[in-house]
């Protein structure tokens, strides 16, 4: 069950661009966009996921730079299609003024791929990296 520190707030206030912290206290990215869905016909939409990654970030930047950012992100993806990385709303532990805490470890999030790639292909190969 997600804990919200405030009863009423705007997306800009507590969600968009906030830092995600995983269950081990490690940074896990930022909220680039939100996914809302319509559960039942006639019901108001609810927050179903936080979206991250270049294909969510690009459209928010807008303009030509945003299109490029999105295009690069899309070409680097494993899957076809440009739907951004989802962090299911069920994984949100706590939302406060400072950050959003998740229930999962960052290794299990979709948005982890670029970090793993950098670690395995570049940083891990430089001598002297103590893990």
């Amino acid at each position, binding site marked *: 069950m997600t804990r919200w520190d405030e009863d009423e707030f705007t997306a800009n206030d507590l969600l968009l*661009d906030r830092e995600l912290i995983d269950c081990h206290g490690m940074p896990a990215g*930022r909220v680039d966009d939100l996914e809302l869905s319509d559960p039942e016909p006639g019901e108001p939409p609810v927050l179903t996921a936080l979206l991250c990654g270049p294909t969510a970030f690009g459209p928010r930047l807008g303009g030509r730079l945003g299109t490029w950012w999105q295009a690069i992100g899309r070409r680097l993806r494993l899957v076809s299609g440009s739907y951004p990385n989802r962090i299911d709303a069920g994984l949100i532990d706590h939302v406060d003024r400072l950050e959003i805490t998740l229930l999962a470890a960052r290794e299990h999030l979709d948005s982890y791929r670029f970090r793993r790639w950098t670690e395995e292909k570049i*940083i891990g190969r430089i001598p002297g*990296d103590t893990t």
Partner: protein
Amino acid sequence: MKAVLSMTLGVMTAIGGFVDIGNLVTSGITGARFGMTLAWAVLVGTAGMVLFAEMAGRVTAVTRKPIFHVVRERLGVRVSLVNAAASTFLNLITLAAEIGGVSLVLQMVTGISYLIWVPLAGLAAWLVIWRMPFQWMENIFGLLGLGMIVFVVALFRLPTDWHALWHQVISPAVPAGQPAPTWWFYAVSLIGACIVPYQVIFFSSGGREEGWTSKSITEMRVNALIGFPLGGLLSLAIMAAAVPVLQPLNIQVSHLDQVALPVASAFGRAGLAFVFVSFFAATFAAAAESALSSGYSVAQYMGWSWGKRHPPSAAARFHLVCLASVIAATAFTLTTIDPVTVTIFAVVLGAAAVPLTYFPILIVANDARVMGQRVNRRWVNAAGTFFLTIMVVVSLVSVPLLIITKAGQ
């Protein structure tokens, strides 16, 4: 006792860390050319740096989020991207200037062309980022940088006309025969040398690296309120020492070794040893810090894990940015572009960019919902807003002055 020791250490490293290639070059040039008539610019820059760093440090201590978190969360995704790009660009020019500075010091000591030293300086700076524990880095180079006190001592040995210097400090005016735009240009460059974006990024991110909490605020304040002004004093001493030695000979400072001349004429070789070690420490530490600051700003903007407190593999993308910055800046310095010119551009453009990071910090430091009882006091706000106005003016005039005066010629 231990607390006092650690505070003293913090202050001493803040003094050493305040002075970098920007201060060395601009203080040397202005002392030789304008006497002490621009001392006020160092005072303004230092006061601004204290105010800015104290706010940034306080926000970091309370929220545990350093400067670029705040920038992105407050300014939104678009404006903050401009901000992050501008800061990273400036960090890179500054890094190139510092690597050039380190290499010039090594050239002075060995007589071997600085270009040979550039790749080695870059490599050494990267090794510090890669391997050296954060506090070692701060303490070792901060303390060695204190050797610049030799400029203060030299003032007593040289035929210093204290009365004339003091008169220039308290009644500043463009010296006869000097063009006014150039005088103002160097005023901007001195302010920019004192209040450098990378130093604030580094100060606040470094606070996080050292695990600051609300309890660390006193320590942070002592560093900023005592350490930085003493660093400003060193800048003034470098400026003042140039007056009795370089001004009578009409030397236009265009090389780093000319900045060292006053100490050489006061103490000879022994004094020069102090100058070399302290210049090396100051520029080398600044090289590592400005490269780290590139990593800090990009990683904080993107929400990546960052910092030397994690092993490199746990902050892989942060280390990638630092490494790429060092490579880019080293390559840039190797183009044989004059490091002194690069320094002038770095400090002036840096002064122009100060409002970009200063403004969001001022806003958050005012947000009682985030800061609780550590929110800005009214007089801090008054001073902060006043200073913001000054920096906006500086920012607006800096680039036109840069063009009109052809970078201070």
